[in-house]
């Protein structure tokens, strides 16, 4: 049993919770390797996917996870643009209550809105990303991917590289990785770091070259191009020069280290075409596709642990 009802913030999870989620994910990985990739564990349950912000991989992953557990799914796409924020949240709650579902997966552009929603309804809520705040299932699937690549998590050196300011992935991953005993370093330029950087409790570097030879995990964040109209960074060329992963840097990475990215990758910005297209034994160190695969198993594990009771 998990110690929490809702999955909103990774810091609410105990290390026992995290271990249970990852151990059951192993069982679901096995289910996903079968010819019939479906088990009846959540038959009769209904999962509501409520996305107020665009998403393809997270929404599809949750939907597929629910279906492979034999739960029914309802997709509720909403745009909050025409409503005032306060009204849209209350409407959300009302809709959720009247649909009589068993669990809600919610993505919203407002940081921290999940707690408000969870307070108003009595079904469990899973945060599928809220603004710049948290993306707990991404953190869990990333942790699972790392756990499968190394013997022990304790003391692993992780470098999270790129647009920390706009990234909920950076926030939830840093918190979860540190909770599990890993050593996290943020690699970014000052304009891509938030003001309250102490909150992360992580060391800071300004260039990827400072960590390339020592990190066990290099985690590239997606450059939030849609937010670049606000000129957080002078130019993409500059970004590539200090924070990008090119073939030369890839080859100078520590032996047995891995490269991760939450997707979708801006090819040629965070990671060069050359690195993305690499094949042979070196390709297995790039975990981007595996992260997506593991995401399904981890989300199945979460849905199962929350709902099968």
């Amino acid at each position, binding site marked *: 049993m998990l110690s929490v009802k809702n999955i909103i913030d990774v810091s609410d999870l105990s290390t026992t919770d995290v271990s249970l989620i990852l*151990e059951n994910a192993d069982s679901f990985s*096995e289910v996903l390797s079968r*010819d019939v990739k479906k088990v009846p564990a959540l038959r009769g349950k209904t999962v509501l996917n409520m996305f107020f912000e665009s998403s393809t991989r997270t929404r599809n992953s949750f939907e597929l996870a629910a279906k492979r557990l034999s739960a029914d799914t309802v997709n509720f796409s909403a745009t909050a643009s025409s409503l005032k924020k306060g009204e849209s949240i209350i409407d959300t709650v009302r809709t959720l209550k009247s649909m009589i579902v068993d669990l809600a997966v919610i993505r919203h552009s407002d940081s921290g809105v999940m707690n408000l929603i969870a307070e108003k309804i009595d079904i469990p809520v899973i945060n599928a990303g809220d603004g710049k705040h948290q993306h707990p299932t991404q953190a869990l699937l990333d942790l699972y991917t790392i756990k499968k690549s190394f013997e022990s998590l304790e003391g692993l050196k992780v470098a999270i590289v790129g647009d920390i300011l706009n990234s909920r992935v950076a926030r939830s991953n840093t918190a979860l990785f540190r909770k599990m005993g890993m050593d996290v370093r943020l690699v970014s330029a000052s304009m891509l770091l938030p003001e309250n950087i102490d909150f992360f409790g992580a060391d800071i570097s300004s260039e990827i070259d400072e960590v390339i030879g020592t990190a066990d995990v290099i985690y590239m964040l997606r450059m939030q191009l849609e937010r670049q109209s606000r000129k957080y960074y002078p130019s993409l060329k500059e970004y590539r020069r200090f924070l990008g992963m090119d073939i030369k840097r890839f080859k100078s990475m520590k032996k047995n280290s891995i490269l991760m990215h939450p997707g979708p990758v801006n090819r040629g910005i965070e990671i060069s075409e050359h690195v993305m297209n690499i094949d042979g034994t070196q390709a297995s160190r790039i975990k981007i596709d595996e992260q997506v695969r593991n995401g399904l198993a981890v989300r199945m594990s979460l849905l199962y642990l929350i709902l099968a009771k």
Partner: protein
Amino acid sequence: MMKEKATVLSDADIKRVLKRISHEIIEKNKGCHNIVFLGIHKRGVPLAQRIAKNISDLEGEKIVSGKLDITFYRDDLAKRAKQRAEITEIPFDIDDRDIILVDDVLFTGRTIRSALNAIMDFGRPKTIQLVVLIDRGHRQLPIRADYVGKNIPTSLNEFIEVNLLETDGCDRVVILENKIQGNNVKC
């Protein structure tokens, strides 16, 4: 706390019972060329491996044995403390094979029902035959075992504890009586 009431099978008894069942399986299947073993987590797994080894020694053929976890197929999750699921390992094709399904105790039949559903998701076996070390009665579903180590009529407040070398450090089967103060049972 549970009180130990009686030892029903000793380690030597378990050895004899498994040997007898091994012979019965060979006899009924006219050899062992088409059989595969599936043990239900957790104590069905070592039992399946032991019987498979017995048969392999007797017949001189290699017998494969897989592991089946039925957690995700249960219909009574609500009534159980949720435990960690184990990994299912069936590294062979089960289509048209004779599956020998093995569990330690047959009680309500619900575990076996779940196991049958799980197996059907992997293919279409020719037959499924059930081995249990102990049949304690109180069936809730129309399920019976093909090979039984020992029938032990029990009352509902009794509990059958199976200990195996591989999982618990010793081989024995004891009856425990519920709700009575006593020593914790240890190997």
